[in-house]
């Protein structure tokens, strides 16, 4: 656990910002891997512009929840609405019919995902990583897409790296490119799965800074992280997942200083001990 010195924004404190309509509604979601019940009736509503931080022990189901929202895993019960879609299904005469590959892909374009291991495309340059989907999937004009990619690279603080290959970048730089790649699809919601936990300590803040910046610009974000500095600076709510349930849900200060659940107290004592 690194404590980042991220001062909360003075202009717009998280508590003051006006949140929009619900944009992610997770309702009674169940997920099994074989006989292993990983998500147990999980419900969560995230409003437009809101930043939700999820923490919890390893194996509690945090990644699985994000992956279900982005349809990287199929759910076994409940519903997920995100960015205006009923994720993974369409409704016909009150019945839910699973969507095909192409329709799922279409829904996924409206959500951006950032992975622990960056998962940049190693065979193409940084700028091609960012423009690949806009140009090849959305059929955007290539010159325009590249111009926008350059703007995004500036925004994540890497204006001079467009021709580098991912391998030539540090972890922190790669993760910032990954954020730019996701943003290039103009997603309505950004999902982050432990974006800094594969990074050397000195690179963590450069990624968190970009994320705080993004949150200030009104991006809706669900972030799995144990970075309390980020949670304090940017989160509207912090949740604790435990064995497939959300067991605590509170504003950052309450979550860290006056948690209700015994699980949260135990969890906090463990990460603070580091």
């Amino acid at each position: 656990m690194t404590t980042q010195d991220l001062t909360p924004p003075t202009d717009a404190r998280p508590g003051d910002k006006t949140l929009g309509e619900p944009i992610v509604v997770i309702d009674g979601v169940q997920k099994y891997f074989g006989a292993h019940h990983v998500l147990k009736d999980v419900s969560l509503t995230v409003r437009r512009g809101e930043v939700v931080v999820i923490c919890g022990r390893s194996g509690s189901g945090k990644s699985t929840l994000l992956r279900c929202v982005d349809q990287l895993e199929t759910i076994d019960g409940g519903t997920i609405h995100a960015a205006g879609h009923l994720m993974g299904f369409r409704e016909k005469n009150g019945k839910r019919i699973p969507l095909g590959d192409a329709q799922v892909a279409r829904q996924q374009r409206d959500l951006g995902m950032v992975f622990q291991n960056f998962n940049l495309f190693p065979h193409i340059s940084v700028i091609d990583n960012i423009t690949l989907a806009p140009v090849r999937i959305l059929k955007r004009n290539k010159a325009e897409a590249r111009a926008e990619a350059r703007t995004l690279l500036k925004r994540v603080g890497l204006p001079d790296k467009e021709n580098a290959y991912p391998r030539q970048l540090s972890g922190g730089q790669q993760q910032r490119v990954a954020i730019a790649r996701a943003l290039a699809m103009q997603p309505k919601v950004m999902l982050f799965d432990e974006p800094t936990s594969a990074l050397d300590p000195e690179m963590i803040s450069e990624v968190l800074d970009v994320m705080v910046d993004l949150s200030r610009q009104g991006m809706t974000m669900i972030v799995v992280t144990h970075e309390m500095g980020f949670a304090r600076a940017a989160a509207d709510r912090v949740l604790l997942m435990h064995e497939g349930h959300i067991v605590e849900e509170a504003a950052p200060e309450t979550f860290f200083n006056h948690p209700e659940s015994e699980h949260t107290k135990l969890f906090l004592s463990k990460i603070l001990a580091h």
Partner: protein
Amino acid sequence: MNWSWSYFFEYLTNGLMVEGAWTTIWLSVVSMVLGLGLGVIAAMMKMYGNRALRWIAEFYIWLFRGTPILIQLVIIYTGLPQLGIRLNVIESAILGLALNEGAYLAEIIRAGIMSVDKGQNDAARSVGMTWRERMWLVILPQATRTIIPPLGNQFNGMLKTTSLASVISMEELMRNAQMLAQIEFRVLEVYLVAALWYLLLVSIWSAIQVRIEAHYEKPFGPAAAVSPEAEKELAKAIEKAGPA
């Protein structure tokens, strides 16, 4: 001793040998390209197909890897007509070589696809790519890096394997050498020249292969540049640590 330099030099530039070499080249290229197509299809069927498709792919691979190419060629050219399927020499040679090659390439391609990190598929899906788009834009280009070296070796083998098509009278290098040998009985001279031609073709291919491999390795080349100071430090540290 009965060695004739004059025959040897005559064969070196003999029109029939040059033509044969040219046939060997295009026969290899065409068979390889078709074999690659078959290999990709078979690999896809085996990896992503339903039970029936998987079974078909496995049967194909098992059959063509389990029998000699010589028998495959002979069956296609002289056996199939009994079933009413008549293919000319060129068609038979290409079909036999491609089918045989595809069975080997299928396994190489499958291994290449499996070598691509699973996170790549997640990342491609997260930006909204369909299965086809993921395969075409993300997975196969990366699998190529793993596939290229063994693929190059397969093509090296293909250049020589085409000589077997001489048994169905495909007029490539080997067959033309045989014909010359039957005219003038300068067996050693003509086959040595044929061998030299194969050596030349394979050597040229090896040079091309090195370039292709370097091209596909480029994105994966040396990681982030290390400063000279850091490099020295590292060397010192390794020296101090002594042999592991």
